Structure formats: C-alpha cells, structure tokens
C-alpha cells in the first residue's frame, strides 16, 4: 500500500539542511500538522512538569505532619499543578490533535486561517512561559512569595492585593488571559475549518464524529473562555486601577467571582472531555470492526451536553449559601447532563456489540476509558445531589471524582489517541510491548491512587491541606494514594521512552496500519505538506470502507 503513496521526504534529506534552517521552519510554520505537533509536544512537556508537582504533593502527604515541603511551597504546588494540567497540558493536547486531524479527516489541505493558527499557538505557548516565569519574577519589588498560591480558582478575595501581594497572582491572571486569547483564536479556526473547508461530498452528516465533536468543543470554548477573560480583566482592574468588583473590603462581591469562574469552569470540563469522546468515537469502531452505533444520536447527545453544561456551573457553589430554589435548579440540571452522557456510553457499547474487538493498545486505553468514565459520571451524579455535596464538596472525594474525569477519562483517551495516530504522524508504529507495560502500569497506578482517594473524603479530609492530623483514619489511605502516584509517574516514563525509541526503531507503519476508514489513512504516513495530491470526494461517513468494500459500500445505507 505504501508504494502507491506520494513519495515521503525521508529523514536524511531533512537532516542535510542546517539545523538553524529546520528550527526556523518549525518556528515560522503555518502548517496545521506542524502546529498540531508543536501543541502536543508542548502539552507533553507540561504533563511532565505538572506530574512532578503532583509527586511533590504526594510525598508531602504520605504521612501526617510530614515536613517534606513548607505550607507555602505546597500551596504553590497545587495552584500550579491545577493551572498547568488544565490550561497547559490538556487544552494544548486536545487543540493539537484537533489541529492535526480535523483538516485531514475532512479532506482539507490546511485549517481555514493558517496564520491565525500559528498566532494562537504562540499565544498559548507564551501563556505557559508567563505562568512559570512567576517562579523568578513573582516576588517583584515586594519580596512576597513567588509562584501563585491562590489555588487554580483564585477565589476572591484571596487574589486581591491585600491577601496576595507581589506579582505572583498577576502572572497567573495574565498567563490565562493570553492563553485564553489563543484558545479563542483556535476555536474560531476550528469552527471555520469544519464549516467551510470540507471536501466535495462531505456533508455535515457525513463528517467523522471527531470533526463534529471538535466543532461543538470549539463553540463551547467561545462561550466559556470569554467570561473567564472578562473576570481576569476585572481582577486586574481591582488590583491596579482601584476597582472593587471582587474587593470585599470595599463592598465587592466574592460570590461574583465564583459565578464568573465557574461559568467558565464547568463548560471547560466539557471542552476537555468532548475531544476525548471524539477520540473514542474514532478508535472504538475501528478496533470493533463496526461503524459507530447511532451516529445522529451521538451528535445530538453531544450538542445536548454542550447546551446543558452551560447551565450547571453553580453546582460548584452548593456550599456558598444559595437558597433552596437555586440549589434545586443546579441539582437537576447537573443530573440532566447524565442523560446524554449515558446515551454516549451506551452507544459505544452498542458499537462493540457484535463486533470483533481487537485488544491493541489504543483499544485497551479506550476500554479503560469506558469503565472509568462510567465511575466518574456516577460519582458526579452522587455529588449533584446538593445535600450530599454539602458533605462531599471541598473534600478529597471531589478531588478523586474530577481526577477520575481528567485522568481516568481524558488522559486515557489522549493516550489511546497517541497509540492510534502516532503511526500516521511519525510513520512508525509505537511498540505494542512497551505500550502494554505503559497501559497496565498506568491502570494499576491510577486505581491505586484515585479509587483510594475517595475514602479520605468520606472520612472528612478536606482538599488543599498541606498536612493532616494523625488518628483520623487518613494515614494508610494517603500512603496508598502516594504509592499509586509514583506508579503512574513510572508508566508515563515508559510512554515517553516508547515515543522516543519508536521514533527510530518502530516498525514502518504504512498508510493504513489499523485498516481504518477515515480520510487521514488514505495519505502517506507522515502526510505530505499539502495533505492530498487531489482533493478527495466522499460518498459516505467511511470513505475508506467504500474503497475497500466496493461490493457493499456504506453509501448504499445512508
């Protein structure tokens, strides 16, 4: 199959050029594939940084009254860990995959606005640098603290001048403001690309689900990032121009900040998880050898999640003293999200039903995703019941719940996506053997950490404490959680090793190693700079199935 492909510029040709030229090419590129790779590498870098911060916290919490780090350092670690993982790990990662895959899957040669694309990436990159520059520059002239220590929600009035002197929380604010503009740029780009750049025959109802779900994600980014950016500007006005939006000492409102933050914060969870759904909706069918079950329902359910998730934000605020009507409203909207989400899980199971499931590494990660996302959803339902949340909110139960979503679902889906699309991007397969080591170590570490972590929450352990009192039944549990964290770190090292070793030693992938059905597998691996020599024409949702089974094409049934 590889022989019919357009000639790939091989490695020696590239390395003949002076390295400064190669660097210049990468820094000034407007190619969606290179920008996608930059985004993903950037996300991987911050996965490691955020992971180190997590390990520092877990060592500190291994036993009660530990003094591995000071409270000040611990508070910076959880602030930086949360901010890094949300804004500079998962966001760039999903944007990177969207950037790389969406044009290839809809038969386009690039994104709609290539230069906006490059601009957005560099804004995001600058945001991350600003956040981490706070370690050096945060003290400013005041000599007070360095990295921000206000938590990743930066609740008012903790982020006000009175409680957060110096510039540490300013770096947090400006970093999110800058990377937020980058996210808005990318979102506009994805929307324009999906709506305007599809190849002939690719009607909206023939788009791969990945393109559909990224379209919905991009729409949500526009609605979610805007209030966050507005709130950041208001916070800057408070801190530098004498404003009193959130300045409670001068009559401002702490609760106003919470609303602004969570009106961003909850849709943000879906901004992160919908691309994970997108990966699942491409990978599960291919390794079950069946088309996705109920394509129109999958799209409708995702649109539904998009809308409903805009009306659930105050379930993060059940403890701030809203009245019983507000609490009831946000309880029912939150429970309602479970309906379309449940439909999606059922549809993935429906896809596997009657298939021939192949347990390649991408599918292993996908199956783990299904189990873990189920649990994450159910613990979410438990907390949507406001009175139960009065106990569980702000406890380690919540920490376990949202790590189940972000690690158990999103990170597992991202790993599945790595194993699935690495051959397309690099042209070589990732090692299945190392892949299975990575998978099992990560699954074991994950469950050791995050299953166990629910229990201290039920036993009354609040989050964001740098140490805890002995004799409350939390000691052994925290020790187990920490051990699991270390196992996960080892698994990530195996993964990084796999990526590096397979880059040189991996088996040649060919165009279509998984016998898949979407357009990106019709071009060489890695794809040529212009993607398609001639723009393809499609007649169904699975153009490559039609090509491989001319006797029984999908187009006959749609």
């Amino acid at each position, binding site marked *: 199959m590889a022989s019919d492909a357009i000639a790939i510029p091989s490695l020696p040709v590239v390395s003949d050029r002076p390295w400064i030229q190669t660097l210049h090419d990468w820094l000034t590129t407007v190619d969606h594939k290179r920008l996608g790779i930059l985004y993903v590498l950037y996300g991987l870098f911050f996965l490691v940084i955020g992971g180190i911060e997590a390990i520092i916290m877990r060592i500190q919490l291994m036993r009660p009254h530990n003094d591995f780090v*000071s*409270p*000040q350092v611990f*508070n910076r670690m959880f602030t930086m860990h949360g901010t890094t993982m949300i804004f500079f790990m998962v966001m760039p990662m999903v944007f990177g995959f969207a950037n790389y895959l969406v044009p290839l899957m809809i038969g386009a040669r690039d994104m709609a606005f290539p230069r906006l694309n490059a601009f957005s990436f560099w804004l995001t990159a600058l945001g991350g640098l600003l956040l981490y520059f706070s370690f050096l520059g945060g003290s400013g002239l005041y000599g007070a603290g360095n990295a921000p220590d206000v*938590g990743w929600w930066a*609740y008012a009035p*903790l982020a006000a001048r009175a*409680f957060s002197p110096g510039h540490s929380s300013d770096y947090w604010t400006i970093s999110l403001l800058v990377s937020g503009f980058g996210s808005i740029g990318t979102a506009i780009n994805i929307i324009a690309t999906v709506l305007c750049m599809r190849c002939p025959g690719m009607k909206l109802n023939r788009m791969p689900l990945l393109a559909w779900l990224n379209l919905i994600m991009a729409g949500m980014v526009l609605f979610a990032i805007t209030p966050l950016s507005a709130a950041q500007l208001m916070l800057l006005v408070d801190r530098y121009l004498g404003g009193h939006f959130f300045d409670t000492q001068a009559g401002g*409102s*702490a*609760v106003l900040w919470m609303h602004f933050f969570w009106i961003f914060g909850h849709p943000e969870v879906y901004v992160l998880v919908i691309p994970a759904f997108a990966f699942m909706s491409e990978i599960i069918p291919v390794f*079950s*050898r*069946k088309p996705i*079950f*109920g394509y*129109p329902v999958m799209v409708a359910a995702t649109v539904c999640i998009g809308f409903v998730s805009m009306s659930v934000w105050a379930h993060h605020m059940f*403890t*701030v003293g809203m009245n019983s009507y507000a*609490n009831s409203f946000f*309880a*029912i909207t939150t*429970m*309602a999200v479970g*309906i379309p989400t449940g*439909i999606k899980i059922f*549809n993935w*199971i*429906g896809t*596997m039903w*009657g298939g*021939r*499931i192949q*347990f390649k590494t991408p599918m292993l990660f996908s199956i783990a995703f299904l*189990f873990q996302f189920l*649990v994450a959803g159910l613990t979410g339902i438990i907390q*949507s*019941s406001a*009175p139960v949340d*009065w*106990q569980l909110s*702000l406890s380690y139960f919540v920490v376990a719940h949202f790590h189940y979503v972000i690690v158990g679902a999103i990170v597992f889906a991202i790993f599945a996506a790595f194993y699935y699309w690495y051959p397309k991007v690099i042209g070589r397969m990732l090692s*299945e*053997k190392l892949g*299975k080591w990575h998978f*099992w170590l990560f*699954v*074991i570490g994950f469950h*050791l950490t995050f299953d166990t972590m629910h*229990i201290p929450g039920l*036993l*009354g352990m*609040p989050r964001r404490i*740098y*140490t805890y009192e002995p*004799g*409350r*039944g*939390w000691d*052994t549990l925290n020790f187990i959680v920490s051990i699991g964290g270390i196992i996960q770190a080892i698994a990530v090292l195996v993964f990084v090793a796999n990526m590096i070793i397979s880059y040189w030693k991996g088996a040649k992938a060919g165009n279509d190693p998984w016998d898949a059905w979407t357009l990106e597998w019709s071009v060489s691996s890695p794809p040529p700079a212009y993607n398609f020599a001639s723009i393809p024409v499609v007649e169904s949702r699975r153009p490559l199935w039609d090509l491989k089974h001319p006797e029984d094409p999908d187009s006959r049934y749609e």
Partner: protein
Amino acid sequence: MRRTNNSITARGFQMLALVFWFTVAAVAQSATRPTNTNIFAPESTPAKSIVDLSIFVLVITGIIFVAVGTLLVYVIVKFRDKATDTGREPAQVYGSNQIELAWTVIPVLIVVVLFLATARVIHAIQDAPKPASAFEVTVIGHQFWWEFRYPKLGIVTANELHIPVSDPAHPTPTFLKLLSADTDHSFWVPQLGGKTDLVPNRVNEMWIDPHRTGVFLGQCAQYCGVQHAKMLLRVSVDTPEDFDAWARAQQKAPTDDAAVTAGRRVFEATACINCHSISGTAANGHFGPDLTHLMSRRTIASGAAENTPENLRVWIRTPDAIKPGSLMPAMNLNDQDVDALVRYLETLQ
C-alpha cells in the same frame, strides 16, 4: 511477540487484583478505626438526613454501575476477536431507534427520582423554620482561626465551640450565623452537618441539632491561605448543666492575681494588645483570639497544639514552629519575659 504480550496482560490482571485487595484491606482497616470525622457516623439531624439521602443515591448509582459494568465486561469477553475470525468483517450495524429510545427514557426516569429525593432533603434542611427554642451563635472565620460569639450570653471565645445537646423530644437546635473577617472559609464538622462557607461581605446561616454529647472534630474546608490546613475546629456538645457551668465561667471577669503582675505588664507593654483582648485590661484587639479565658480551652493555635505551658512558651517564642505562616508574629521576648507571660496566661481560667 504474541506470547510476551499475553504474559504482560496476565501479569497486569494479577497486579490489578492485588490492587483491589490492597484497597479493600485499607478501607476495612479505616472503617474499623474509631474516627471522629466520618460522614457516615452522623450525630445530628441534618447530617443524619444527608446520610440517608447519600445511601439512597449510592444504591441507585451502585445498581447502574453493576448493570453497565456487567454489560461492558460481557461485550468485551463475548465479542473479542477470536483466532477463527481472522479476515472477516462482522455485520455492519448502524444503529437502532428503538434501542436508542429505550436507553434515553430509562436515565430520564432515574433522574426524576433522584431529583425528587434530593429536592425533599434540600427543602427539609434549608427551609427549616427556626424554632423559638433555637440556640444562636455567630461564627466569624479569620485567617486561620475561628471566633465564636454568643450574642445573648455576652460570650466571646475561639476555636472550641460549646453548645448544649438537643433533646429530640424538645429540640434546641443551634443556628450558626456565619461571617468572615477576611477570605472565604468553610465550617465543616462532618458528624454534625454539611459544610457552609463563610464568605466576606455576606451572611450565611446553617443549623445543627446534635443528639449526643461529646467533642466533634472538623476543620476549615475552603482554602483560605497559607495555614488552611491547621484551621482546625472542635465542637463540644455539653449536657445543659455542663453548658451552663461553662457559660457562667466564661462570663466571669478574670481574677487579678498579684503574683503574675510582671507577666501582665509584659503583655500590656508589647504588641500583644494590638491583636488580642483580655477583659479588664487595656488589651482590646480583634485580629487574634480573645484570651480572657484562654486556659478553659484545650488547644491553642486553632487546634494545632495542646494547650500546655510548654506549648504556650513555644507558641509565643516561635509561632512558626507550631504553625508556619500563621499571622501571629514572633515577639522576640527574652526568657524571663516569656516565663512571666506564660505564668500570667496560666491564670486566665
């Protein structure tokens, strides 16, 4: 190659089984340990109704987990790729409207049931009328300690809340008015009730109705700054007699003991009085806890240390040794002054 993969898979399953065993053992161990902050050991009305609701919700979500989990395992085992299948694609099924409808309607019904049960408990706890017999305390959160004011009794104390036990036949629930002096805090004593935040510029209210005497532990649940972790909380639920005795002791003016005049002079001559109050002296600061009846409390530094003369000495000399980052400054007193001061504080019964 294939054999290696299988052995990794087998080892993986073994390890996973070990993990579950390990977790279950740890849970069993922590469940049997007497712990004072378990939300499933309620001793007060709102905490009890929350546990009942939690169990209801847990059972429903548990059933969903078992049902969907079993289905998933069945599908994985039943439809795995077998060696005999190679080469042939399975039947290509695109969907089914009937099935989609069924698995939409069932979750809708479950949501309706869960919501009704939830709304009932929200209403029962939040909209409960305040009976005339209710006992009232104002709680003010500070970085990083708790101030308790009893407006009707004229008592001001810190970190250890005393309330009378409530007899179920003639309930005397305690209504807490929650305020904050600086940042957000959250009042959480798991055995007595859910948490409610203390938000600056806002008045929140919650109530508890404990049916058993004893000391109940909790701590600040909303991140409030450097020493959020050691903003601990003790609620002492007393018999009515014990409570009256405690209240009378708190209302008394401190005795003026001539033997400790030196220590009192140190207290009044340093910055101590800017933050602390002791009634009958010049000290009337409000940034730190009221010390008028310091020795009636079992802990200092918001529960971070036992209230012993030795700990008091350490706390005055180097607060960071007990609670790094607390807002109490080290006063740099010489040994003689510290000794005198501690002897004075010991008389504040």
